């Protein structure tokens, strides 16, 4: 391993911490892995969705007659075909709004709320015919004024998206309709007093644009109803059970009538939790009496799946001359898109989690606007907040003349730090990350080249547990099958198999992991929130422990010994007092058939004890003063993984997250015209970084064990996207003297800032 990727290990294991080849790797490098778009069924129809060209409009009428008459068309549906249309308001009671939002999000009934909002769908013999049929559907729209900016949407005179939406302030409901769905506030200590004690106070307003997760595989779903009324779905999702629940909700079906098979997934990053197509494909399939496959185009992915929200923030921090923080405050508004539910609460929770400060206050607003409903995107909410907080902290350091790492070490959150929303941190590795950054060759070598600068920023994600199920069955040849419900996006088959192998004391190659459908495993929450290696890993460990206990019992039977006299150690079962009696895992497996049949361990977990993630990033940038273009010339990401189960894939998560952050920092944005239409729904104009835009991304994995997991695992997938925007902004400041307070920091914006500084 080169020095560019370091792992600072505290504990060595046999399998955990090694870098084996992933079990699904060969299928993926040979093109044999089956993704959702690859599903083939006899008599398969293809579906297309008609989408609103308007960001905001009332639907007066929809006429599908001509489309239905087109040869090759097998079914056409609108919102009238969804169960919601048949339910009365009285029947729905308090559930009315929630179900209307869920149903209208699938297919709009009375209003369209964003360009791309589905209004009808067609199933036909092929996608070309379905597309032709879309052009024959006549929709009479009454266009309405749209609002896409989060602050504009908060104004009293803003066009209202939902007539019945009122602001909920922790259960207190506002007295008139509003685009502000929720307001939350948390406070610790006394911020007024804290700012009063400060020698320096910095207060800034910042904004960020909507960005997309940018997975390369578009959404897809294939639906088929068996004649017994069982619905089968094959789909690309981060959570098969989440799809099942969402479809059951919208189609008013019991979950037992839906089987969801998660296909290989071509990237998600949070964007493949929402089920956009499945209910539509299912409804079309029911109407047509044939299986229906539906694929989104790239433009549909941009316009009608969930971006991360745009945001507005006001950040205020105060410190003594020695750098000690006295008070921090954040006001943040995030756009939820067309329906409530932005990650503003995550932003509030994460914003100051890197700092131990006595006085703090955070206020957050969840605001609906005429954009597609936002979805989760890697550490949802935290990157926006970190852009605000970490750039303002950098300005504070500059004013105080302090090194940014020394300043953060002085104020670092550590075990015992009480966060603003209340809970107290357990053992966390932020200080260790800062120290690793300070001691890194990168930080000790000045940035190279003219017009260059270095930025430092930190980030936090809380990580999550949630429910997971695993089954381990022992094959008679001594291998084990590891069955799980966690979809594998970035290599979790490997990391979970490693934990099972470590626990059983057997070789990694002897564990055969597989991801199965919703009928074949217990409820398992999504792959997301940096939970899978932690929580499903725990489930695998528990299932393995169950296997061990049963293997002990079998050996006791074979030896006619008491179970208490037999123990499991190092992949073998042995008699505690008779050294002659020892059976390796494989030898014992061979005898299972004659001692009662196979052994299977099963477990369901819903663990607490997730360990929080911290990261520190160092970014060197070079800014061309003539064009305003920023090149990232060197980049190092330092992160506490607790324990890196498969360091290569931890590095991969860190590198991938950092690069998404670099894209977010420099070029990625939803660009809207004056009427609120997205103008750049292609990979050409939505500029994600290419290989030519980046240096190698060096990593340092710090391992401060999480006490909530036997091998010390924390989550790793989310936090790498949190620091990059601020790190790059801080680097641009060092290179140019300019403080960019709006994302993305495009060449055009940098030129504008230069011109403004130079007097127009």
């Amino acid at each position, binding site marked *: 391993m080169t020095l560019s990727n370091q792992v600072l290990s505290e504990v060595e294991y046999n399998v955990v911490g090694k*870098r084996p*080849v*992933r079990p*699904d*790797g*060969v299928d*993926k*490098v*040979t*093109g*044999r*892995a*089956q*993704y959702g*778009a*690859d599903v*083939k069924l006899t008599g398969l129809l293809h579906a297309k969705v008609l989408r609103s060209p308007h960001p905001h409009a009332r639907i007066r009428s929809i006429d599908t007659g001509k489309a239905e008459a087109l040869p090759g068309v097998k079914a056409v549906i609108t919102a009238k075909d969804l169960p919601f249309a048949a339910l009365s308001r009285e029947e729905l009671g308090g559930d009315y709004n929630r179900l209307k939002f869920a149903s209208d999000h699938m297919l709009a009934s009375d209003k369209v709320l964003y360009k791309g909002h589905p209004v009808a769908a067609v199933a036909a013999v092929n996608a*070309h015919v379905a597309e032709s049929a879309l052009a024959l559907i006549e929709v009479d729209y009454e266009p309405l004024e749209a609002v896409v900016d989060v602050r504009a949407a908060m104004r009293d005179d803003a066009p209202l998206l939902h007539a019945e939406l009122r602001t909920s302030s922790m259960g207190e409901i506002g007295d008139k309709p509003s685009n502000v769905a929720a307001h939350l506030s948390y406070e610790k200590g006394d911020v007024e007093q804290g700012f009063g004690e400060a020698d320096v106070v910095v207060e800034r307003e910042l904004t960020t644009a909507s960005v997309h*997760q*940018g*997975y*390369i*595989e*578009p959404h897809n779903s294939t639906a088929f109803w068996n004649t017994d009324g069982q619905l089968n779905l094959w789909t690309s999702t981060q959570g098969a059970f989440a799809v099942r629940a969402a479809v059951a909700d919208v189609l008013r079906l019991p979950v037992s009538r839906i089987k969801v098979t998660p296909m*290989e*997934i*071509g*990237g*998600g*990053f949070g964007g493949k939790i929402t089920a956009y197509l499945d209910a539509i494909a299912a409804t079309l399939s029911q109407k047509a009496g044939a299986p229906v496959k539906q*694929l989104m*185009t*790239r433009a549909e992915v941009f316009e009608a799946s969930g971006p991360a929200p745009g945001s507005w923030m006001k950040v205020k921090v105060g410190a003594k001359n020695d750098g000690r923080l006295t008070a921090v405050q954040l006001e943040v508004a995030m756009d939820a898109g067309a329906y409530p539910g932005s990650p503003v609460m995550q932003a509030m929770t994460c914003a100051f989690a890197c700092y131990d400060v006595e006085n703090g206050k955070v206020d957050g607003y969840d605001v609906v606007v005429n954009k597609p409903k936002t979805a989760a995107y890697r550490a949802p909410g935290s990157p926006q907040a970190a852009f605000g907080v970490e750039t303002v902290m950098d300005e504070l350091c500059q004013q105080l003349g302090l090194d940014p790492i020394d300043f953060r070490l002085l104020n670092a959150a550590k075990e015992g730090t009480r966060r603003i929303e209340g809970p107290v941190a357990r053992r966390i590795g932020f200080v260790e990350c800062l120290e690793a950054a300070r001691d890194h060759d990168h930080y000790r070598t000045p940035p190279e080249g003219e017009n260059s600068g270095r930025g430092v920023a930190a980030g936090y994600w809380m990580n999550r547990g949630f429910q997971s199920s695993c089954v381990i069955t022992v094959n008679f040849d001594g291998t084990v099958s590891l069955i799980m419900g966690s979809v594998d*996006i*970035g*290599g979790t088959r490997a990391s979970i198999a490693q934990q099972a192998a470590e626990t059983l004391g057997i070789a990694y190659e002897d564990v055969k992991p597989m991801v199965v459908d919703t009928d074949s495993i217990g409820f398992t929450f999504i792959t997301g929130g940096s939970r899978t290696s932690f929580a499903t890993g725990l489930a695998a460990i528990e299932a393995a422990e169950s296997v061990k206990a049963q293997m002990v019992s079998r050996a006791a039977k074979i030896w006619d010994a008491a179970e208490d006299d037999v123990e499991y150690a190092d992949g073998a079962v042995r008699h505690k007092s008779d050294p002659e009696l020892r059976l390796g895992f494989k030898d014992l497996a061979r005898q299972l058939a004659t001692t009662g049949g196979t052994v299977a361990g099963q477990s369901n977990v819903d663990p607490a004890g997730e360990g929080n993630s911290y990261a520190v990033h160092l970014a060197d940038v070079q800014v061309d003063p003539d064009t305003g273009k920023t090149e990232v010339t060197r980049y190092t990401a330092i992160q506490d993984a607790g324990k890196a189960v*498969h360091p*290569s*894939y931890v*590095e*991969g998560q860190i*590198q*991938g*997250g*950092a*690069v*998404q952050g670099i894209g977010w920092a420099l070029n990625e944005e939803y660009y809207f015209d004056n009427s609120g239409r997205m103008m750049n729904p*292609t*990979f*050409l104009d939505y500029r*994600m*970084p*290419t*290989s*030519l835009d*980046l240096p*190698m*991304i060096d990593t340092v994995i710090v391992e401060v064990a999480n006490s909530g997991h036997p091998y010390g695992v924390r989550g790793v997938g989310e936090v790498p996207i949190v620091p990059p925007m601020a790190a790059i902004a801080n680097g641009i400041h060092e290179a140019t003297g300019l403080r960019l307070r709006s994302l993305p920091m495009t060449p055009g914006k940098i030129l504008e800032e230069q011109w403004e500084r130079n007097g127009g």
Partner: protein
Amino acid sequence: MPGVVHVQAKINGEDTNFLCEPRQSLLEVLRDVLGMTGTKEGCNDGNCGACTVVLDGRIVDSCLVLGVEAQGREVQTIEGMASPGGLHPLQQSFLENAALQCGICTPGFLLASRALLDAEPDADEGRIRHWLAGNLCRCTGYDKIVRAVIQVSTAPEK
């Protein structure tokens, strides 16, 4: 209404006959007509490289080629990259270097990388980054992909 066209092409070394509509792209033909789903669709407008195939020795985006244009020509896809004897060294290197996460862009990267190293066996990091700029990957940040290709390249710096 225009009908279907009979096309003869050599695909992964095999003489192949298929029928397609003129409007069907080579990508559609490979996936929907021939059932070769290893070639992936990411954008359908030539901006992601997931559908990269080799057409008469050059890498192209198969979404921007009509199936009928394959008439009399030679197409190589990911399905033909490994030999019966085993994986191509690049496939092996991608596995060992963890150069894939979700895997959807992987076939395109592998074909593009092979085309590069076939033409320039000693391609260095800069050349590799330039050559692969037409292939988007959102999971890896390219670091491990570039390293995997460097490892197979004969470039002196490793």
